[in-house]
């Protein structure tokens, strides 16, 4: 269990790393702290096999915790590597990097707490802390629109988390109204939740889905997401899209694991409606946008929709959902970090101004290409396998109408994304090619994410696969 505490410990470094005296060492301290966190997370996943609650019952190392602990910490290590490289090549970023190091360590401490939490309210509080830690990072000095985006993010997050908290209180009342003692500890809830659902539980679950769905960027409360992902610096966008997204998802999954154990049909309709609506909204937006960062952001809304549909189906789709979730975390990290590099080189986010990336910025062109194919669910990536399993789950559940709408929207997304992104990669360069030096060190984090993506589609070690299976089983997979 000491290893688990080690994954939380680097947050304690935050005040020191952010101080004026430590500015010059902040990038390397951030990289070191994230490496320790990632190593501890991997060690926990490999060595801990029981899910007994500890730390007064507030923490657990069940399969969900172990899987997401590894995912978010490995991604954070990649982001820290990107930041370290940016600090190395752009000394003027010293103050910004120092601020990022301080707040991102607090963010990661809270994020790790969310995934390890065995207490619904404690994980809610920790998710709020991640929001408060990351909101100031969205602001870029001299860019008023980024401040408005930060406010919009905070506003929607607060409303979403507020709705989720009311949902959790309704769920507690549902237990109380049945004569039970309300609790927020997951291991205690598992023994209480087999009873038939009453009105309080139905309302509570619907509110939790809507509340955490807002944090995931599900329609109808999605409008903060494109603006925030567009305005935030790439490293912060990657934190939001690949780390915080998974934290919010873990919070939702925890609730579904315990409260749907007795009745898998609960909130299925709500999840299906939100999922399809999100996919429809994102498809229309992808067709309309000419901004590549926004395009990736809209694709994130699409992913959230697919995940919601997978969760609604449950059962056989659960394994696919988990595969899809983890794949998408890596895809979004690759794409947003690459988008940052492209913006820095071209000075624009307009897709029509960027062409011939594969000649101009070979590494970035390659990662944009790989990321786009993975984004669209091409083989051999994990997202392909995940999407395929979710689709087969829809057929097995006899949701043929949903299946048809799903396939239509995915096809439209594919055409719209390809039409916009492919000329950026293979088009004729619009300006003279400079061949700026792109070091292997800069590309290493994205390369590691790429290897993880391919591995999930082609071959997964037994230990990792069994983690996925355990999480899927907790969501109802046979």
């Amino acid at each position, binding site marked *: 269990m000491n290893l688990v505490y080690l994954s939380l410990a680097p947050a304690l470094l935050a005040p020191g790393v952010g101080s004026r005296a430590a500015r010059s060492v902040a990038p390397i301290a951030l990289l070191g702290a994230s490496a320790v966190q990632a190593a501890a997370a991997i060690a926990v996943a490999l060595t801990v096999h029981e899910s007994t609650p500890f730390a007064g019952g*507030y923490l657990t190392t069940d399969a969900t915790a172990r899987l997401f602990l590894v995912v978010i910490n490995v991604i954070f290590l990649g982001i820290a590597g990107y*930041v370290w490289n*940016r600090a190395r090549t*752009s000394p*003027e*970023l010293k103050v*910004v*990097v120092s601020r*990022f190091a301080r707040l991102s360590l607090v963010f990661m401490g809270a994020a790790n707490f969310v995934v390890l939490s065995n207490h619904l*309210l*404690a994980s809610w*509080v*920790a998710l*709020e*802390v991640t929001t*408060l830690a990351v*909101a*100031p990072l969205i*602001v*870029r*000095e*001299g*860019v*008023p629109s980024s*401040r*408005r985006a*930060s*406010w919009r993010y*905070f*506003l929607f997050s*607060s*409303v979403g988390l*507020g709705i989720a*908290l*009311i949902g959790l*209180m309704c769920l*507690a*009342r549902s*237990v*109380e109204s049945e004569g039970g*003692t*309300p*609790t*927020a500890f997951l291991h205690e809830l598992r023994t209480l939740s087999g009873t038939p659902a009453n*009105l*309080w539980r139905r*309302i509570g679950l619907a509110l939790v889905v809507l509340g955490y769905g807002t944090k995931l960027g599900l329609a109808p409360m999605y409008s903060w997401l494109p603006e925030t992902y567009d305005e935030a*610096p*790439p*490293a*912060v966008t990657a934190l939001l899209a690949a780390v915080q997204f998974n934290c919010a998802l873990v919070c939702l999954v925890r609730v579904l694991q315990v409260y749907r154990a007795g009745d898998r049909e609960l909130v299925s309709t709500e999840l299906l409606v939100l999922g399809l609506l999100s996919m429809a909204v994102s498809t229309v937006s992808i067709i309309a946008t000419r901004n590549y960062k926004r395009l990736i952001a809209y694709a994130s809304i699409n992913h959230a929709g697919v995940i919601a549909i997978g969760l609604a189906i449950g059962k056989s789709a659960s394994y696919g959902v988990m595969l899809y979730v983890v794949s998408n975390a890596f895809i979004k990290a690759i794409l947003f970090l690459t988008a*940052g590099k492209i*913006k*820095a080189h071209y000075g624009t986010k307009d897709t029509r101004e960027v062409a011939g990336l594969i000649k101009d910025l070979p590494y970035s062109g390659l990662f944009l290409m790989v990321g786009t194919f993975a984004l669209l669910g091409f083989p051999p990536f994990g997202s392909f396998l995940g999407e395929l399993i979710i689709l087969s789950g829809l057929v097995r559940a006899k949701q043929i109408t949903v299946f048809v709408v799903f396939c239509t929207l995915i096809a439209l997304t594919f055409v719209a994304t390809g039409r916009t992104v492919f000329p950026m990669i293979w088009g004729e360069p619009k300006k003279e090619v400079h061949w700026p030096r792109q070091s292997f060190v800069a590309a290493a984090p994205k390369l590691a994410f790429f290897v993880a993506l391919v591995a999930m589609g082609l071959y997964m070690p037994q230990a990792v696969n069994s983690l996925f299976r355990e999480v899927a089983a907790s969501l109802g997979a046979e």
Partner: protein
Amino acid sequence: MTGLLIAFVITLLVPVFVGTWRTSLLGLAVQGALMASIAVHHGGGVLSLSIALSMFELVALRTVALPLALYLVLRTGDSPARNDVIAPNLFSWAMALALIVVAFRTADVLVPAEGDEQLLVAVASAALLLGMFVLATGRGEVSQVIGLMRLENAIALFELGSASGHEALAFRLGQTTILQVSIGFYRWYLIGLARDESTPGAAETTAL
């Protein structure tokens, strides 16, 4: 407790009809004080660390610190006195009243037994719906901050009537800290926004 809850409904409605930011802030402060009174009534005279923390949150933060922090920012920024939290027309006012009726009807279904608990759920639901209404229609930043705080107060009121499981000290401590940091964020945002408006030509710095 009925009187306190009816007073709470009045503090919800008055700022909707009297469109000045001072009225809205006063409404928020009175809501905090009323919730503190309800908490005392609910606690039945028992004092624990969790209840003490809850009282600190309701009195020091919700009644005093938050309205005061916003008041200082708005006064320093010479904000115009008028600030409608919803559009000042008959349709919006009718909607606000309709939402209160909906909230009370919902409470009838959720808590069939008449009494304080039913009224508390009704008032909390009304506060929640009106808060959402203010947020959905308010365009200005001040209206949005006020809408968010109305929503936060609705949640706090709902919490007062909820099960004892929520009174865990760790949760209460976490929530109080979050509220303090949130107040700091509101101030930081409004001050930064005023600064951005006064220096529109500031150069964009290199992004991370």
